């Protein structure tokens, strides 16, 4: 090809040729619409009529929107509940499954079951298990623990709906993060533990001084991915708490559901983008804080 190109130019070209197949597809089908959607936050558009400039009015409107505030609150509560719980559960599971136990492979596979299963299927099962009057969970509470009929928990409404959502997510995704932790654990040198044993360290001390610090970068990865995924929660809320007309009530609505509703039911695409901006900024800030935190400890 062109002889006059400098070495760096050539290297650039080679690099771009690697990226091109993916990047072209990615840019055309994902990046362009995203940039467009970002800009929409400052406009009003219904998907058909001409776009009109709205300035900051979409954002101003957000401040007085009851449903938006509820969605924001619920999403944050959900994240605060789900992120640490999933992290602890998956770490614990990984540590146990990193021991030499019989049937380790089977246990690992079983833990991965919920993640690979389709959401439609597992939420149906979940709703049967937690059915407020006929489900086995409440049945046990009633027959074994003698919880009076009227006080049986209503798992899919009111204050408990977020609890159900959190429990469900932990259950569904812990296997996934367990595998990541498992991988991290396998990377820790066995010598460290042997040395610690010679020094007379107990199990907890080994965890505290070896496992946990060694897993720091894995934990960072897990927490960042978890946070992003939790902020984007949508299907779980719809499938666990939706019903009737499919509307989520103020106690179960979440940001992405509200984005969906504003975009596809009310066709206020600009407003919907404004909500998305808030979501994006939150994820961004949280990720940045985590990033800083991680760097500090390294």
């Amino acid at each position, binding site marked *: 090809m062109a002889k006059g190109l400098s070495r760096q130019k050539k290297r650039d070209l080679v690099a771009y040729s690697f990226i091109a197949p993916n990047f072209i597809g990615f840019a055309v089908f994902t990046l362009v619409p995203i940039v467009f959607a970002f800009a929409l936050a400052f406009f009003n558009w219904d998907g*058909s009529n001409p776009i009109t400039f709205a300035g900051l009015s979409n954002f101003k409107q957000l401040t007085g929107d009851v449903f938006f505030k509820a969605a924001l609150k619920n999403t944050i509560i959900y994240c605060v509940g789900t992120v640490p719980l999933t992290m602890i559960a998956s770490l614990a599971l990984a540590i146990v499954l990193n021991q030499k136990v019989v049937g380790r492979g089977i246990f690992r596979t079983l833990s991965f079951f919920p993640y690979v299963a389709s959401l439609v299927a597992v939420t149906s099962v979940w709703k*049967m298990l937690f059915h407020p009057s006929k489900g086995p969970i409440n049945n046990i509470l009633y027959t074994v623990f003698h919880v009076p009929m009227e006080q049986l928990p209503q798992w899919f409404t009111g204050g408990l709906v977020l609890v159900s959502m959190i429990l469900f997510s932990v259950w569904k995704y812990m296997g996934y993060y367990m595998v990541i932790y498992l991988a991290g654990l396998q990377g820790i040198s066995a010598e460290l533990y042997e040395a610690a044993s010679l020094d007379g360290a107990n199990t907890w001390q080994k965890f505290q001084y070896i496992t946990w610090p060694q897993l720091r970068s894995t934990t960072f990865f897990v927490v960042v991915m978890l946070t992003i995924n939790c902020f984007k929660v949508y299907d779980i809320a719809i499938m666990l708490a939706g019903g*009737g007309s499919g*509307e*989520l009530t103020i106690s179960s609505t979440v940001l992405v559901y509200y984005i969906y509703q504003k975009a596809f039911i009310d066709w206020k695409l600009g407003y919907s983008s404004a909500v998305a901006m808030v979501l994006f900024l939150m994820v961004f800030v949280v990720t940045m804080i985590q990033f800083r935190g991680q760097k500090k400890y390294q």
Partner: protein
Amino acid sequence: MKKKLLSVLLATSMVMSMAGCGNSNSQPAASNDNAAETQTQAAETEAAPQTEAASEAQTADAAGGDAVTLKWAIWDKESTPYWQALVDAYKEVAPNVTIEMVDLGSTDYMTVLATELSGEGSDFDVVTIKDVPGYATLVQKNAILPLDDYISADGIDLSKYAGTTDQVTVDGSLYELPFRNDFWVLFYNKDLFDAKGVAYPTNDMTFDEYDALARELTDTTFGSQVYGAHYHTWRSAVQLFAVLDGKHTILDGDYEFMKPYYEMVLNQEKDGVCRKYTDLKAEGLHYSAAFSNGDVAMMNMGSWYVATLIASLQSGEYDADLCGNWGMVKYPHAEGVEPGSTLGTITGLSVTSATDTPDEAWNFVKWVSGEEGAAVMAATGNFPAIMTDEAMDLITGLDGFPTDDASKEAMNVSNLYLEVPYAENVSEINSALDSYHGSIMSGEMTIDEGIAAMNEAVQAIKN
């Protein structure tokens, strides 16, 4: 260079597809062949005037009675027999028109449809309108055409539609023509009344009488439960009892008047008269499953359920021992209001703005929504928007339709209020009301809190 190549490619492919279209459309008419030929020749020169010529040629085709294909958006093709029946019948009337049905599924129908009709370039010609909020969306998006000119040109008498078209008129223009008009009645299971030795409900019941009757039939014994009433999880099933007095509408912005009805239903729920809302939501219990189980004495539901009941009993899907002996009466009414006021749900057809063949599309819409379409609908046990005596006789004469006089009388509606009439922000109002209905019914909010929240939300939307 690249740009030029691209535009040439585009122009060629566009014209080729047009030409191809023209060819397949045309009966061997000389003029048509010529048109196609000139198109291909001109392809090398300029594209813009060419496309115009092509589309002109196409409309000419349509007017001349040549083959036209109309793409029609529908839902649940498998479980809803009338779509195919309508298409078959129209084939007899207009053999040159092929109707291609596209099933968008019922769950997210209006969402998928509105997405499809966003921007330009949809290839749908006729779309079915499932609900008023969705209708409002499409009207505001200019995705469907106003039909007024067609209506006046063809001299359609809108008074035949029982006043429903007035409730969906937007700034003096009508964008849909209903072909189905369902109204809500009270279904009941005669066997359960007989077993208790209680007289059947009547066509003239106040809400207090209805409530008392439901309680009388209820049996909370474990294992042999009978529910006096059943309310599906839809907002309409409970909230809209309140608008039947004709003094209030769902768009009021002050919903204090709903309180007595919420109280009635929630008290019934507390006493085991009806299934719990939260249970229904958790299991996603369909109203048809509830009624066909044979433990529900009375259920308020739309008249679309008549066709389902008849068909499912005949096919053996429902156990005739459990729910085979059913009847209908008019909706209960508030004290001092004449009986026969009820809720209506219209299903309409619209012509899309994107269609190339609006005249053909309109002809189809007109036919389906007209008296011939009405006959087809009635023959499948569905309630057409134009209710003629013949259509009524067809339905009430169906094999499996209850034979008692009260059930037939129940079909006479005096006042029909749409579940949601048209308003500018009807979609948002609807969402807010739905959401707070859920809050009230599931006990997240007290009735007063819920109503206060509704008032606040709807007033905020209206301003």
